[in-house]
Each structure stands twice: as structure tokens, then as C-alpha cells.
């Protein structure tokens, strides 16, 4: 775990091919990218030869091809476009929790996944951004994303942000979603307004899933702003788990309603599975 985040993210992403986030309504975008649109258009890759027609300038004729026959041919290139993906990673204090010394904090996992996703996307030529960091393509963007991930917030629970989401872009929200869900609703609503779709990845510590506490306990939030005292923590377990399940359901419903994807990931599991899910979710569109 001592390796820098970026190296680990690169290593994690190595097992997957470059990720091309699915894009719709790409006609509206003018950004060049590597999404082959299976039709002729602006791009670098060869698409097809077509007989030259009226209106084609002499410069457009591919003379080498034309010389092999009597007609003139024009070399068409595939229309390629880039998708814009905005990733929001919760940087609030609650993400710093780890239920066991052998497990990394949730924030660590969340950042790792975000960066690994970015690596895959950037490798595929997509444009990746974060709230506050404009979306760009290219490897250099990775460094800027890394910088953006480094900032922490003092708040106990993060508020989901969808600033800078481009229309028809893609959004990835990574958080534990233990705070106020209204902010999440607002953020998804704002993104949907711009025709952006996306994925919600909830990262939880196994301790939060199991609630393995007993005896007289004072629970405090990571920032210390909230506290709750109980004399027999084990009694609360059932009700806590009920509330947690309810919250997950609400998130899943929210995702369904707006055509997003929802997944809950535990830091006790391998990061690979979560990355695979994100890969699929991005591919599926």
C-alpha cells in the first residue's frame, strides 16, 4: 500500500483494455476522440474508399487507389469522437474510516478506483474531468486528476457535485453515501438535465455492513460533529442494518429512475471487481 496512488491505479488498470465510454448523441460534440462511429467523418483511421462524386475537390481524390482502376476514388476516414467523463470522489471525513487496520480507508479505495478508471479512459482517448478540473484527454490529465484527488474536505459527509458535467457526458459518483441523500438527488437531477448519464458506486467498509459492536459505546462521526451514545450497541444492530438497507434501496431506485447504474462495493473485497463493474457501466452507456 506504500506505492503512490497513481502507480497502483496504473497497475490496477493494466489488466483491462482501454475503456471507451459509450457515447450517445455524439453528433453534438465536436471534440475529436477515438470513438469510431462506423461512418465516415472526421478522424484519423481509414474507413472506406468511395467513388468520387461531384463536389469532391481534387485534393480529396486518393490518387494511388484511383490509379489502379478507371474511376476516381475518395479515401474516407472514420468519424471519431471523444466522450467526456466527469468523476466525483467523495473527499469528506467519513471516507477516512476503516473498520480494521488491515483494510485501507474507504477514501483510499475510492480514489484508487477513480484513478484506475481515469487511466483506462484516458488510454482510450476519452476526456476525463472532475468537478473543478476541466475534462481533457491525454496522459497529462492524469496528473491533474491526481492533484484534484489529493484535496480533502473537513465536512463529515460529502455533497455530491456535478459541476462541469458536459451535456451528453458521463458521470461517475463514488462515495459512501452515508450523508444527506438530498444532495445526491439534486446532483443526479442536475446531471440528467444535461442529458448526462452515469454510475453511482457506493464504497462501504465491511464494519459498516456488519455493525460488529457491543457494550456501552459512544459513536462519533469522523469529524466529531455527530455523536450517539448507546448502552448496548448490539441492540442497535438490527435497526442500523435496516436503515442501511433502506438507504441502499433508495440509491438503487434513484439510479434506476434516471437510467443510471448503482453498485455497492466493500473495501474488504478486491478493487478489481469494482473496476470491472465500472468498466461495464461505462461501456454500456
Amino acid at each position, binding site marked *: 500500500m506504500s506505492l503512490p496512488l497513481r502507480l497502483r491505479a496504473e497497475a490496477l488498470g493494466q489488466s483491462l483494455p482501454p475503456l471507451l465510454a459509450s457515447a450517445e448523441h455524439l453528433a453534438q460534440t465536436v471534440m475529436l476522440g477515438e470513438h469510431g462511429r462506423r461512418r465516415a467523418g472526421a478522424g484519423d483511421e481509414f474507413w472506406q474508399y468511395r467513388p468520387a462524386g461531384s463536389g469532391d475537390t481534387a485534393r480529396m481524390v486518393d490518387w494511388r487507389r484511383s490509379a489502379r482502376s478507371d474511376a476516381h476514388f475518395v479515401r474516407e476516414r472514420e468519424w471519431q469522437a471523444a466522450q467526456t467523463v466527469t468523476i466525483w470522489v467523495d473527499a469528506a471525513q*467519513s471516507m477516512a474510516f476503516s473498520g480494521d487496520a488491515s483494510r485501507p480507508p474507504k477514501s483510499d479505495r475510492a480514489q484508487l478506483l477513480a484513478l484506475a478508471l481515469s487511466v483506462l479512459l484516458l488510454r482510450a482517448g476519452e476526456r476525463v474531468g472532475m468537478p473543478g478540473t476541466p475534462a481533457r484527454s491525454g496522459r497529462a490529465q492524469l496528473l491533474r486528476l491526481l492533484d484534484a484527488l489529493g484535496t480533502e474536505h473537513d465536512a463529515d459527509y460529502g455533497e455530491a457535485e456535478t459541476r462541469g458535467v458536459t451535456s451528453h457526458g458521463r458521470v461517475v459518483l463514488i462515495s459512501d453515501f452515508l450523508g444527506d441523500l438530498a444532495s445526491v438527488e439534486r446532483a443526479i437531477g442536475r446531471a440528467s438535465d444535461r442529458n448526462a448519464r452515469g454510475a453511482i458506486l457506493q464504497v462501504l467498509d465491511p*464494519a459498516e455492513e456488519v455493525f460488529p459492536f457491543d457494550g*456501552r459505546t459512544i459513536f462519533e462521526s469522523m469529524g466529531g460533529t455527530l455523536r*450517539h451514545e448507546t448502552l448496548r450497541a448490539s441492540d442497535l444492530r438490527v435497526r442500523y442494518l435496516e436503515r442501511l438497507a433502506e438507504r441502499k434501496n433508495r440509491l438503487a431506485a434513484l439510479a434506476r429512475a434516471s437510467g443510471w447504474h448503482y453498485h455497492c462495493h466493500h473495501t474488504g473485497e478486491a478493487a478489481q471487481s469494482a473496476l470491472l463493474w465500472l468498466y461495464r457501466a461505462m461501456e454500456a452507456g
Partner: protein
Amino acid sequence: MWTIGPLGFTAPLLLLGLIALPILWLLLRAVPPAPIRRRFPGVALLLGLKDDDAETDKTPWWLLALRMLAVAAAIFAFAGPVLNPAQRQAGTGPLLVVLDASWADARDWPRRIERARALLDEAGREGRAVAVIRATDAPDAPDFQTAEAWTPRLDGLSPQPWSPGFAGWAEALPEGDFATYWLSDGVDHPGRADLLAALEQHGEVSVFQSPRAVTALRPATFEDGAIRLRASRLPVADPSEVAVVATGPDPSGAERELARATLPFAADGTEAEAALSLPPELRNRITRFQIEGVRSAGAVSLTDDSLQRRKVALIGGTVDEGLQLLAPTHFLRQALAPVADLYEGSLADALLASPDVVVLADVAQLSQGETDDLLDWLDRGGLLLRFAGPRLAASEVSRSAEDPLMPVRLREGGRSVGGAMSWGEPKALAPFPETSPFHGLPVPAEVEVGAQVLAQPDPELASRTIAALSDGTPLVTRKPVGQGQVVLFHVTANAEWSTLPLSGLFVQMLERLAVSTRASSDPADLAGRIWTPEQVLDGFGALNDAGELPGVQGEALAAGQPGPDLPPGLYQAEDRRVALNVIGADTPLAPAIWPDGQRIEGLETEGEQPLKGFFLAGALVLLMADIVAALGVSGRLASAVLVLALMQVPQARAQDARAIEATDTVRLAFVETGDARVNDLAEAGLRGVSMRLYERTSVEPGQPLGVDIETDELAFFPFLYWPITADQPTPSAEAYAKLNDYLRTGGMILFDTRDGDVSGMGDATPEGRALQRIAAGLDIPPLEPMPEDHVLTRTFYLLQDFPGRFNNPNVWVEASVPTEAADGMPFRNLNDGVTPVVIGGNDWASAWAVDPNGIPMVPVGRGFGGDRQREIAWRFGVNLVMHVLTGNYKSDQVHVPALLERLGN
């Protein structure tokens, strides 16, 4: 002290604290267990949740009870509970403790000493002056001192194997008032009442007496062909049995049990008897009887000659059937038959039975073969007893030349006095001279000698005469031959020539000559001679060598009353041995009866039993249980157990890591002293030697290590450097065992007193004394200063000096077996034995010491000479390590010339 039943409290007011317990109950109930603070992001989901019930708000009742019990136990503990508190009034003034210290005390002597110690402790607490006396000692004024001064002396006291001399003590008591504690042995010794009366004049007398039975063994006697054993005891209501064991040397000379008898005591009976019938061979070997399981001089009865039956061969020439009363051997047979085993027959047959004594009654001529056999037998210590008679008088034996089997030369014919045909009266006996073995025997007037053979005047005649007639003519003469002797009675063994055989004197004379022995020692028989003690009994019944004890008069021995001047044991005079036993045949054994009103206490010391420790321990255990219970209540028990389990693991790993570190390469090691500076210097010194070894030899040691001899494994290190500091603690027994194991299995320790050996291995310096103290427990062989040809002088460098910071030539190593140097060899062939220790005081570590950069740390000597000395010191270090690692390999070089020679041929 305040008591309830058998319980007393030294601080009863503290018990009032028990009233506070109910208050504590309320307090404890109100305080719930401390909460755990947890950071938990999910707290947002918990907000608003209420606890189902509020039970854990209060401590569970059983936890409360546990804590109450713990507090109650602590209160009880500090109230100072004492079980069976002693109620004796505190006394004042000096205190005299009288120990009988007789043989009867020996059986439970440790308990008596324990009781006396308890009394002294008590007196010490009360600040009283104390004196302790042993009544068996010679009376002397008691020495009143503080109890602290007397307590250590108690261990040195031991019981004496005789009865106390109460009468003398009654007179030796000092003036002034003092109380008396009398630890009596329970036996009524003479003078007890007098001493009690004398003591009561000075103050109160408390008597301590053990109810244990006193059993004593009386001397064994030989009656009717069997050994009769008798034991006595103080009156006890129960019937009981004692086993008496007869011990003596077996044929190989080892002491072992030869026979055993059981003596039954009837109920209320004080005497028990048993008879033990043994073959003479076995019986003669018995040296002592002892009541089994009783460790007291009174339970031991030594045997002397009286139990041993001598084998006597009677050779009487021709025997005429009809004249039995006139037969030369008749009186001898009558005198010896009850007390000796007689063999009669031919001389050749008799000698085969290896008799102790051969009696030749009027036998004149012996064949050459018989003479040779007899001389051989005499050389081995036999006693040849000859009697004169008509045949001897008429023979030519020992006339012109002294016969080897005759003590003197005889004149022809003999003489006859006081007979019908002669003038003069029959002669009486002269008193026995002091040099005679018969000295002290009364001479009866009725003994008359009518005829005798006469000895030729001779320069040696006077010294060989041991009994003479009143006119000075020899009656009995004696001559030593080899280890044995020849004795001649110049009269016949029958009543023909004299009335001597008819008198009691004849039997006594035979006894004095050790021809016969009698069951009981006759006072007259013992008197007149000086008896030297050979072995003496101590109070516990163990037989010790008498050493330099002076001899005693036979009269005193005959009185049979052992005392300080006459310890019981075995006494010897000439050929006879007499045993003086503690208990004689008729020594009275009666219980001590104390006057009415005299308080008598038992010896039990375990009266007071402070319970404070138990209560405190109980409180502590309860509190520990409370910790576990409290952890359980607050849900932290599992984690606590986990933590405890985890704490065990890293320690074992640390041990392994050290073992690997110590063994991955050769490492020199030093013993860590308590002084950090000495440790650092030792480490630096070994570092210096290691560097030199690395540079110059194929030994490439790692960094030196310090070892703690108490905890660390030593077996990893071939060599230990041990700097001695004055205040070094003596190693524990386990450490000594480890060190000895190390030395025995090939390790070497270099002891360095670091004092320049100014004392020469002595104790003039504190370090020298510390070394002596530490080395006392080590298995160190004999040492010698390092000889010139010791293998250490040539294991790598050729050295004759072994300097460190000092250059003292005295370095001690294991002493070599003295062997001769072979021809042409510069040193002796000392092949075996690597010295396990090297001891010196040259402070080698300082001379060796270098810092990690290799710069010497401590100045040595001055200028070039100093550098040279340091170099030699390093060379010594190299030699030392080479010696440790290669052993005596260099000594094998003595064989090189021989090998070369063999190769050349």
C-alpha cells in the same frame, strides 16, 4: 488484640469500614461501566435510535457482589486477622532459655530449635536480654545478650549424647531476677528438681515439653547362645513395636544391615525384649545396634569385644582318659567354654580354622612344619599361649638358644618351692607392674605357686616379664612375633604346680590377654589402664572419629556415666575394645514429673497464623476477576484476550532472531556486567580483536555480542570475555549450571579482573574478591601460571608476554599434566586439554579496544613501546581465539619430526 473464637484482629477498629459497604453498594450501582468511544461514519444512521432497555445502565448485581467481596476482603486484611493468636503475657526482664540438649532431645531437635527461635523472636520484640544454655554443657554463668545476637547462634547448637548435669547448673546461676523457659526433653535426669527450685528463686519458670515418646536401646548382651536386645521407653499407654537393626561390615567391608529384630512394647509397658540368634561369623561382625527410624544417641548401642566370641584352639598333648581333672587343658576348657568357641584336636587341623588364640598346654616339641605354620599364623596376628608343665621342663626346648615359639630361654629342670621335699614356702604373686597388661588386677592372697620353670637371665627378660612372683622370678613372659605374640605361663594350666588356675585371677588374666571376653565389663577389669577413645557418638547417634580426644582412666570408664569428659563411643586399650553407650544396662529411664502448678506447654510453634496475606491475596484475586468480568460486561473481553495472545508471539521471534544473529557467523562475546562503561569497552575490545583476526587470519568474526549469563544461551559462542567488576552480582544457580555446562562442553572464558593483577590472584582488590566470589560456583580445574611451553604461546604468534593495558606475566590457565619434554623438542607433549578458563588482570579489553573506525580508544603505555605493547596484546587476542577454535592443534607439532623421519625412510 480483639478476638472472636480462634480469630484475632490486631487492628479491629478497621473492621468499622465494613459499615461503609452498603454505601459502596449504592455508589457502585450508580456508576455504569465506562463507555468505549468509537469513530463510526454510520453514526448518521444511528441518530434517533433508542436503547431497548436501560438495564446495563447499572452494574449487574453479581459484579457488584464481586466488588463488595473484594473490598470486604481488603478491609479484613488490613484489620490484621490472626488465627490462634498467642495470648502469652508480655514479659519483662532478662530471659533464660534452658535447653536440655540431651540424647533424648535429638529426635526432634529441629523443632526444639524452632521453638527456641520463636521464644527468642518474641523476647526480641519485647526488648529482653536473653541467654540460651545447654544443660549438657559444662556449667558456666549464662551469657545474657540481645535476642538478635543469640538467634544466629541457635543453628550451631546440637544435642549432646549424655544426660544434662543439672546439679552443676543450679550452682552456676547468676544473681538477679530472670524468667526461665525450660525446653525439657521429658526424661527425669538427676538434679532436675534442684535446678527447678534454683530457677524459681530467680523468677517464673515455663516448661515446654514434647509429648513424644522417648525410646532408648540398652546394650545387647550375649546369653544362652543368643544376643538379647532390650529397649526401654517412657510410659505410653499404647502398645507399640520398635525395629532394631544390627549393622556391621559385610565381607567386602561396606557397612550394611546384618540382622533385624522387632521388640514389642506391651501397652503401658516400658521394657521390650527380643533375642537374636546369629551364626558366630555374622555376630562377630556386628558393630552397632540401632532402633530404626530414631535419630538419637540413646537409640544406638555400640558393641565391643563382649559380643565377639574368640576362636580358641586348645592343644593339650596326650590326654589320659582316667585323669580328666589332671588333664592340662581341663581348667582352660572350663574357663573358656562360656566365653569363647573352642577347637580341640591336632594343631594342623586347628590352624585351618584360623583361630584367634592357640593354647599349647605343656606341649614341648613341635614338628618343623607345625613350627612354620605357627610362625606364619603369629605373623598375621595370632596369640600363642603356652603353659609350662613337666614335659616342657624336661625337654630341651629353648635351652641353649631361644626358641622362636618361646618368649624366653628356660633353665633346666625348673624349680619346686614349698613342696614336701623342699625348703621355703610356696611363693605368692607380686603386684602387677604398670607396664603389665594385668596392671590393676587385684592379687588374691590364696594364689600360690609351688613349682615353675625358670627363665634364663637375659637382658630382655625384664621387659618380657608381665607377671612375676613375689621373689621376682618371672611367672608370665611375653614376646611379640610379627603382628602376634607368644605368652608363656611358667606354671601348668592345671592345679598341679600352682593354685592360679583355681582362682578368679586366672580368668581375669585370660581376659586381659584377650583370650576370652566376658559379657559385662567388670569395673576391676577396666581399671588401671588408660583407654583411648577411637570413635565417639554425637547426640544424633552418628559415629565419628575421635580425633585428638584424650584417653580416660579405666575407673571412669567403668563407672559407665557418659559426660563431657567421657563421650560415649568405642574405647581401646591394647587389644581390647570397650563400648561406652549412652544408655547402660540399668540406666534409669523415667518421665520428668513437674511439681503441681507448673505450667507445661507443648513445642508447637505454629500457634499464630497471620491471615493478612491470605485476605489480601483473596482481594487481589477478586479484583482480577472483576477486571475480566468488567471487560465482559462492556464487550471488550474478546479483544483483551486477543491482545494477550498476540503479546506472546513477538517475544519468541525475538529469541529466534538473536539465535540467528549469534550463529550466522563466528562471534566473540563478552559477559555483560552491570557497568555500561565496562560493557562498551569490552565490546570495543572484542571489536578490535575481531578486526585483527579478520585482517591477519582466516577467522572472520562478525560484530561482537554482549551476553547476559542469566537469560541468554551461551552455547552459540566459542569464547566469552568476562570483565570483572567489584559490584557484579553473583550469578544465580541456573546461570552457574549454564556456565559449567558451557565450560565442560568446550567453551572458554577469559576472566579479566582489570586491576593489573597487583594482588597476584589474591583478594587484595575488590575485583579480585569479586572474581573469587563468582568463580567459587564454577567448575574450574586446578590452575597454574601459564607455562612457557603452553600451546597458547604458539597457536598463531610466538609469544611469551600476554599484555593488555597492564603487562603482568601472571596469567593463569588450567594446570597441565606433568610430562617430560621429548628429546630435542622445545616444549612438552601436552596434547590434550584446551584450558576452559584463562584468568588474569591485564585489562585486555582496553588494549584491544578500537572505535568503529579502527582507531584505538584507550592509551596504552607510552610512545613506540606502548604501540608495541598494544600490538602484542592484539597478538595475544589472536592466539587466544585461535586456541579456542583450533584447540591443541599446534601441540600436535611435536609429532612433526617423527612423521618426517618416517616419511624419509
